[in-house]
């Protein structure tokens, strides 16, 4: 044990400050391969510490759907020196906050604490990464909790199955992309203690984790503490990254769905094969999504809800409904979801959506629209970076999904540089009507 600590401290590289106009941060890597980003902001005595683990729904093996998310739950069930429930209780006793989330391409954990309590957060995280308690009882118990979550958020929620299961599974062909993060009851029920343990050993290895610590900290001291707590944890090997290759769309399709809980019919549409992160087309499609769906001034809100009055709500954009735009990773979707009035047909709604997409593919946006969308995007971007957690999350997503934390500091300028031509071209190339999958959701919920 002691030897490992020393070896870890030894391998800590000198912090290399990398200044940028966005978030200033330095980084180092422990000898076990865990990467750490540190950003100092002493304006209030608060620190956010977050971990992004390179495992999400897309890494799951067939027959093991829902494991990444089940595992996220297990991370709060106690570890060698922390009893069940102790994690939340201890953090709260210092005025801290914490949570976690599972996505298609990663799992995210965070704690926000007064800066003097950072050692507590690191100790808690190191104990669960290094020595998680996984018992038969806790696995069975959390399978039930996750099933209840699925019932609540997916199965018994109007449009839940369409949005969180069906759009993804019918749009994609490759199982890695097509299966839902929440998993299936059958796969969850089949999870054994051994399965959960081997998932943990495979993916929760320090070299598969990036940590960000943002706030009122001394970077040198942080490095010492992280090395002390995480250095002794050994890295293990894991399966190769999943093959997420997706064949080209096979032509326009329409899928009929019935929803027992919905009271109004709905029409969804998806396009797959969206461009890779960081490309001009990617930035253009994010902004186009905002122009079409975001807020009361958006094109499809105006067209469907206000002018033609066929719909009651619209939602959509790049990544939708599988991921948010900022966690998007190719191959992804560009999707829309429209709840419409009972006396209107899905054909009427479809025609209006198709019209609007065709118009954008031909002429792009108006200059005023593009300006409004960019201003709103910039302000949302800045607002999200106000908190330490917002900055930690942005750095970690860039580090994992773009392969470079610095990408977080270059990104906003790239969005602001998008031209109307970029948007027009992306719409024409990636949102072809002949490649769309439509979903007609019939309301089975009655009055």
């Amino acid at each position, binding site marked *: 044990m*002691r030897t490992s600590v*020393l070896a870890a401290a030894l391998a800590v590289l000198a912090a290399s400050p990398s200044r940028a106009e966005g978030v200033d941060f330095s980084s180092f890597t422990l000898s076990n391969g865990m990467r750490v980003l540190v950003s100092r902001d002493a304006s209030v*005595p608060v620190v956010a510490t977050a971990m992004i683990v390179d495992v999400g729904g897309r890494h799951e093996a067939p027959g093991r759907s829902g494991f990444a998310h089940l595992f996220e739950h297990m991370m709060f069930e106690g570890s060698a020196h922390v009893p069940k429930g102790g994690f939340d*209780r201890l953090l709260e006793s210092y005025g801290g906050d914490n949570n976690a989330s599972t996505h298609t391409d990663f799992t995210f954990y965070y704690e926000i604490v007064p800066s003097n309590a950072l050692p507590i957060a690191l100790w808690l995280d*190191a104990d669960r990464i290094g020595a998680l308690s996984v018992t038969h009882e806790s696995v069975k118990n959390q399978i039930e909790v996750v099933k209840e979550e699925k019932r609540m958020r997916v199965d018994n929620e109007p449009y839940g199955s369409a949005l969180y299961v069906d759009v993804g599974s019918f749009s994609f062909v490759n199982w890695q992309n097509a299966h839902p993060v929440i998993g299936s009851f059958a796969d969850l029920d089949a999870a054994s203690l051994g399965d959960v343990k081997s998932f943990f050993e495979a993916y929760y290895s320090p070299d598969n984790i990036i940590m960000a610590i943002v706030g009122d900290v001394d970077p040198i001291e942080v490095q010492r503490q992280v090395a002390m707590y995480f250095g002794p944890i050994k890295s293990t090997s894991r399966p190769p990254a999943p093959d997420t290759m997706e064949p080209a769309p096979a032509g326009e399709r329409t899928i009929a769905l019935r929803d027992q809980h919905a009271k109004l019919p709905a029409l969804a549409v998806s396009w797959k094969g969206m461009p890779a992160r960081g490309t001009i087309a990617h930035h253009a499609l994010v902004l186009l999504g905002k122009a079409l769906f975001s807020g009361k001034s958006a094109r499809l809100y105006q067209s469907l809800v206000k002018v033609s009055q066929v719909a009651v709500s619209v939602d959509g954009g790049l990544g939708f409904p599988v991921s948010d735009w900022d966690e998007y990773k190719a191959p992804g979707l560009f999707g829309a979801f429209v709840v419409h009035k009972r006396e209107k047909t899905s054909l009427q709604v479809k025609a209006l959506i198709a019209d609007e997409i065709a118009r954008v593919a031909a002429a792009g946006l108006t200059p005023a629209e593009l300006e*409004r969308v960019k*201003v709103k995007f910039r*302000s949302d971007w800045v607002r999200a970076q106000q908190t330490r957690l917002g900055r930690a999350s942005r750095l970690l997503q860039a580090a994992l999904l773009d392969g470079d934390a610095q990408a977080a500091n270059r990104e906003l300028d790239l969005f602001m540089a998008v031209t109307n031509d970029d948007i027009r071209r992306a719409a024409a190339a990636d949102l072809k009507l002949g490649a769309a999958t439509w979903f007609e959701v019939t309301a089975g919920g009655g009055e």
Partner: protein
Amino acid sequence: MNTLLLALAFVTSAAAAPTVDMSKPPVLGPMRSLKLPSRSEWKLPNGLSVVLVTDRRAPLVTAYVAVQGGESAMHAEDAGLAEALAELLTDGTGNKTSKQIADASEFFGGSLSGEATPDAFVVRASALSDKAEAMFSLLSEVVRAPSFPAAEVALRRANMKEELAAARAESDFLAGVAFYKKVFAGHPYSVTAPTDDSIERITRDRVVAAHKRLFTPRGAVLLLVGDIDPARAKAAAHKHFGSWKGGAPAADAPPVPALKRERTVYLLDRPKSSQVSFFLGNIAAREDNPAYFDLLVLNGVLGGSFSSRLVRDIRETKGYTYSIGSRLEHRRTGSLIRIRTPVRTEVAGDALSAIFGHMKDVRGSDPTPEEVGQAKAYLSGSFARRMETQEGLAEAILHQKLLRLPADFYDAYVDRLEAVSPASVRKAAGVFLRPDEMTVVAVGDAAKIKDTLAKFTKKAVVSVGVDGD
């Protein structure tokens, strides 16, 4: 060369690297004190106070306008009028429709909304700092020249009826309405929700008249927080609010008398309810009371956090409820301590006994140093987290201005918390926590709980209706 460096590093590390003892949580140092950015304040000739806090952490500007009055400035029969007025401010002006106001606020990259609080109307706006001028212009327009279109007033009235009907399905809502009605008996603060009749009285004429009467720069505050320097702030305040005219501001609500009265139990019958919602409390002390921080820690020990006595015992050990807590609430002329919990009907009596038992304990003996330390850590930590964003800072300063707290209230916050001791907590409990004088409200199945509740009062249990009367 590398080898040598590594070897040296090894020696240094060997000396410096402590053995990590994972078996217990690390011992922490004290929390660093929190110094808020300095502020400047000035008054315009029309009486508007301007408060500026330049905070350049993000390129955003937050602007609030708070005018005196709010819910307590309305007649009791006009309950809900203040809330309707506040929401309608952003639903139309002489120049803009509701949608145009929404579009314009998106164009400055921000938000705009009105709220009625017990003592004031607050209109909140925020924008990217390079678009702040557009925000000031719209903020001024909705505060000074709202048009209250008749169709929007009618829509608001219709929606309020729906919202009230939906809220009444929640026993916690009903318990809250009755609790404030009784604990602030006869005082304007006693009215916290509209009634079916009072919603009917919300007409365009009444909204316009209330706006004309209450929206005046005299006594009002313009709070500016963010990426804006004093010269620009001064110019904006002058340009957008300098020509604002108005009469005398609303008077403060009368002081809330700290009545000494016998404990009274009120019961709202909700047949077949599987739970009983309890609200209980008494008038306590303002934040500028010298013993306030003792009271704050007392609340932390009793029921103010997950580690508090009420949560650990009533929720964790006894399992009577999923949710229980105590809190301090402040209005300008009266504050209170309040415990709230929904419990299973079968254990309603046992739960109430246990709650009163904890009050007796905390009044009878000093809490442990560990409990006091934990409550202080929780309170300091939560306080620091609230100051992370411009909105958090702006809300804190607004509260200080509206409640007329000392200018250094937040700068001294963490130090004053630190000064609290177990003995001072017990003393505060004796003075401010008054179990024998409490207002107790229960909403539940009267047939099942009335006899049980009778054991908690020397008088008869008093029945109340959905409006708390």
